[in-house]
C-alpha cells in the first residue's frame, strides 16, 4: 500500500521514537530509584553491538535481542557497582560509562562493520487493526520491537503506580533514608533496577543495529542516549508521558525525512538540529514549572545522591 507524505512521516516518527522509548524507559527506571545515569549513550552502543554480534553468531534474532538486553544490563551494573555500592559520583561515573561504551563497542564491533544483518527484526502486520483506513498502516505495520517498546512504559507505570513493590522502589528515589527505615533494601534494589534499566537501554541500541539500520556502525547511536535523558525530564518522571515524549522527538527527527521527500526549502542541518533544540526547551520548561518552589522539581528528590545509612 502506498502511504502519502503525512502517513509516511507519522510512521517514521514512531520508528524513530522507538529507540528513544526504550532508552528513556530504562533511564526512568534507574532515576526512579534515585540513580542518574548520564552514560546511557554508551550503554546503548553496547546493546547495539552485543545484539548484532549475538544475532550474527547464532543466526537467531531472539538470541541477538536477548544478548543486547543482557549486555546492556551487565554493562550498567558496572555503573551500579561504582555509584550504588561504592557511592562514586554519578555524573563522573556516567561520563566514564559513556566513554567506555564508545570505545568498547567500536572495538568489539570492528570485525562486524559492513555486514548486513542476516536475521533482522521482522515486520509484524497486526491482523484486522492493520486494515483500519489511514491509521492502520501507520500504527500497526511495524517491526515487532516497536510494540515491545510501546509496552515498556506501560509496564513501568503499572509496576510503579499500581503495586506495593513499585511504591517501595519509588521511595528509594525520593528518600532512601526513609525507605531504609521501613525496611526497604535500598542498595540491592538500586543495583538491580539500574542494571535492568540498562537492559532496556540496550534494547534501544539493538533496535538500531537489528531493526532500522540492520548493520552495526561505529557510534551509530549519534546522541540518541542524550535525547533519552531529556525525554525523561520532558515526561516529568511519569512513565506514560514517556510515550508522548519519545514519539514527539521521533517526529522532530522524522521532519528531516519529510522535508527531503517533499523538497521543502529548509536546510537539512536545521531540521537535524531540532531534537537537540527540543531538549534544551524541555530543560527550560522543566525549570520554569517549579519557579515558585525553590529546590523543588518533579524529579525524585534523592536523584543523584548516594545513600549512606545514618548519614
Amino acid at each position: 500500500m502506498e502511504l502519502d507524505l503525512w502517513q509516511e512521516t507519522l510512521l517514521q516518527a514512531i520508528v524513530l521514537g522507538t529507540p528513544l522509548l526504550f532508552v528513556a524507559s530504562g533511564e526512568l527506571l534507574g532515576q526512579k530509584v534515585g540513580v542518574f545515569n548520564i552514560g546511557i549513550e554508551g550503554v546503548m552502543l553496547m546493546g547495539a553491538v552485543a545484539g548484532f554480534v549475538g544475532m550474527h553468531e547464532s543466526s537467531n534474532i531472539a538470541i541477538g535481542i536477548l544478548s543486547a538486553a543482557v549486555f546492556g544490563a551487565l554493562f550498567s551494573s558496572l555503573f551500579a557497582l561504582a555509584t550504588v555500592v561504592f557511592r562514586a559520583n554519578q555524573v563522573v561515573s556516567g561520563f566514564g560509562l559513556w566513554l567506555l561504551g564508545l570505545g568498547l563497542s567500536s572495538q568489539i564491533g570492528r570485525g562486524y562493520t559492513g555486514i548486513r544483518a542476516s536475521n533482522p527484526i521482522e515486520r509484524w502486520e497486526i491482523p484486522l487493526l492493520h486494515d483500519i483506513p489511514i491509521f492502520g498502516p501507520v500504527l500497526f505495520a511495524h517491526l515487532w520491537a516497536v510494540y515491545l517498546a510501546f509496552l515498556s512504559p506501560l509496564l513501568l507505570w503499572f509496576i510503579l503506580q499500581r503495586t506495593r513493590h513499585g511504591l517501595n522502589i519509588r521511595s528509594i528515589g525520593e528518600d532512601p533514608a526513609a525507605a531504609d527505615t521501613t525496611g526497604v533494601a535500598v542498595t540491592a534494589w538500586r543495583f538491580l533496577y539500574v542494571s535492568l534499566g540498562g537492559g532496556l537501554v540496550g534494547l534501544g541500541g539493538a533496535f538500531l543495529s537489528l531493526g532500522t539500520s540492520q548493520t552495526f556502525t561505529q557510534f551509530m547511536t549519534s546522541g540518541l542516549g542524550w535525547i533519552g535523558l531529556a525525554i525523561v525530564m520532558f515526561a516529568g518522571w511519569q512513565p506514560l508521558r514517556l510515550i508522548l515524549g519519545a514519539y514527539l522527538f521521533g517526529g522532530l527527527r522524522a521532519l528531516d525525512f519529510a522535508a527531503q521527500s517533499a523538497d521543502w526549502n529548509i536546510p537539512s542541518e536545521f531540521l537535524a538540529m531540532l531534537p537537540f533544540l527540543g531538549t534544551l526547551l524541555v530543560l527550560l520548561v522543566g525549570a520554569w514549572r517549579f519557579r515558585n518552589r525553590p529546590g523543588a522539581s518533579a524529579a525524585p528528590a534523592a536523584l543523584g545522591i548516594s545513600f549512606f545509612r545514618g548519614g
Partner: protein
Amino acid sequence: MIVEDNAPRSAIAPLVEMREVTKQFGSLTAVNRVDLDIHAGEVHAILGENGAGKTTLMNVLTGLLKPDSGQIFLDGSEISISSPRKALELGIGIVHQHFRLVENFTAAENLHLGWNDTPRLAGNKDLIDRTHALAKQFNLDVEPNARIWQLSVGEQQRVAILRTLSRGARILILDEPTAVLTPPEAERLFEMLRGLAESSNRAVIFISHKLDEVITASDQVTVLRAGSRVNTLRTVDCNQELLAEMMIGRHLDTQPAPPAKDLGPAVLVGKRIVVRNDRGLPALENIDLELRSGEIIGVAGVAGNGQRELSEVLTGLRSIDTGQIFVGDQELTNADPADFLRAGIGHIPEDRYSSGLVSSESIEHNAILRAFRDPPIRRGLFLSPADIKNHAEQLVNTVKIAVRDLRSSVRALSGGNAQRLLTGREIAAASKVLVAVHPTRGLDVGAAEAVRQVLLKARDSGVGILLISEDLSELLSLADRIVVMFRGRLTGEFNKYEYDVNTLGLLMGGSPVEVS
C-alpha cells in the same frame, strides 16, 4: 476486692533485655555499657539530656546502628538486629523525632511503604481507603491524600505514629513524641499508648527530657546521663526533682520570667492578613497583630493551625493574598526575605536543619549566613576568610558552645548546640524583631533554659519577639502577652498573669470560651 500484685518486676521475664550495650562514634562513647529491661504491658520512659545517648540506644534496638559490644534478648533468646527491616520483623517499631517520611509522597503512600500488609496490587485509591480505615481504627486524624511537605510537623507526626501502630509493633518506641503536641493532644497520645501497652504482649518505650510527662505517662523510667545508665526506677517512686537531679545533676530554676518593663513603639504590625496554604486552603484569615519593642508575644496553638504560615509571612518567606505588613514605619507587604532581614527581622525557623542551618556546610559558614553580605566580611567581590573566622568565633563564644574546629560540618553539633548557634545568629540579626518558632523544641532542660535566657535578654534590650511555641509552660513563663491560634484565626488574647491554662487549652482545641 483488690488483689495486690506482689511479684517484684524483675521476677517476670522481660520482653526485651539489653545487656552492657556499648556504641562508640570515633573517640566518643555515645552509649556506655547500658542495661535495659522492658516488660510487656509497661510504658517505659528513657529520660536524659541531649547527647545522653537515648536516641543512640534506641537506634541500636531498632537495627539502625550496630552495637560495638553487648547483647540484646527478645523473649529470653539472644537476637541480632541487623537492620530496621529485621527489627520490624521482630516487632520492634520506632517513631523517630525526625519522622523519616517521604516528603513528596502522600500520607497514604507513606503509611503503606515497605509494609508487607500492603496488597501486592494497590493503586492510589486502595491506599487511601486503607488509610482512612487505619486512621479510624487508631483514632488519629490523618488526611490520606495530603503530601507530607504540605503538612505541619504535628500532622506529619500523626502519620508517622499511625504508620508504626498499623504495623502492629510489639515494642513501640517513640523518640520525643510530645515535642510537637499540645497538652490535650499529648494526653490523648499517652492514653492511647497506655491502651496499647495494656493489651497483651506490647510494650511502649518513649524517649523524653520532659519531667512532667515522664511522671504522668510512664510506669518505669530509665535515666541516662552522658551515655551511661544512672538508674531504672518505678515511676510511682519518683518525683520531678529527683529525676531532674539524676538527669542533669543540679536543681532547676522554674520561676516565671519577670514581665517586660518598658514597651516601646510598635515594631511589627500585621493588618488583616489573609493567606492560603500549600494546598490552596485558607491558612490565615484576617490576622491582626501588633508587636511592640521590648515585649514577647506568645502564639499558642496546635500545630497546623497557621503558625507556620504566620512565621513565614512575617519573615517574607511566603507572600500574602491580602493585608499589609509593616516593620517600624516601613511597609514590607510581600517584600523579599532579604528586605525583612535588612529591616532587622531575625527568624528561628521551625525545623532548624532544613531551613535554619545548611547542614552540609561548616559551622563557620553557617555562622555568617546573616552577615556575609556586608563589610567587614564582604570585601568588594570577595569574602574575607579572616573576618569570617572572627565572626564565627565571636558567635560561638557568645552562645557558649564548645567547638573544636569551626570548619567541621554543622551536623557534628548536637541538637542543643546547633540551636544555640542558630539562636545566637538570628538574635544578632534581629535589631527590631525576632520571630522564633519552637526555639527550644528537642532541647534538654539546660540548653532550653540557655535559649530562653537569650530571648529574655534580647527582649530587655528592646527587640520585639514573636514566640510561636507548643510548649505551654514555656509560653506562660516567657510571654508578656499570649494569643491563641486556631484554624488560621487568633481566637484569644491575654496579658501576663491574666490567663489560666484551662482557658488556653480550650481555645487551642477550638472550644468557644467567654473571655472576661
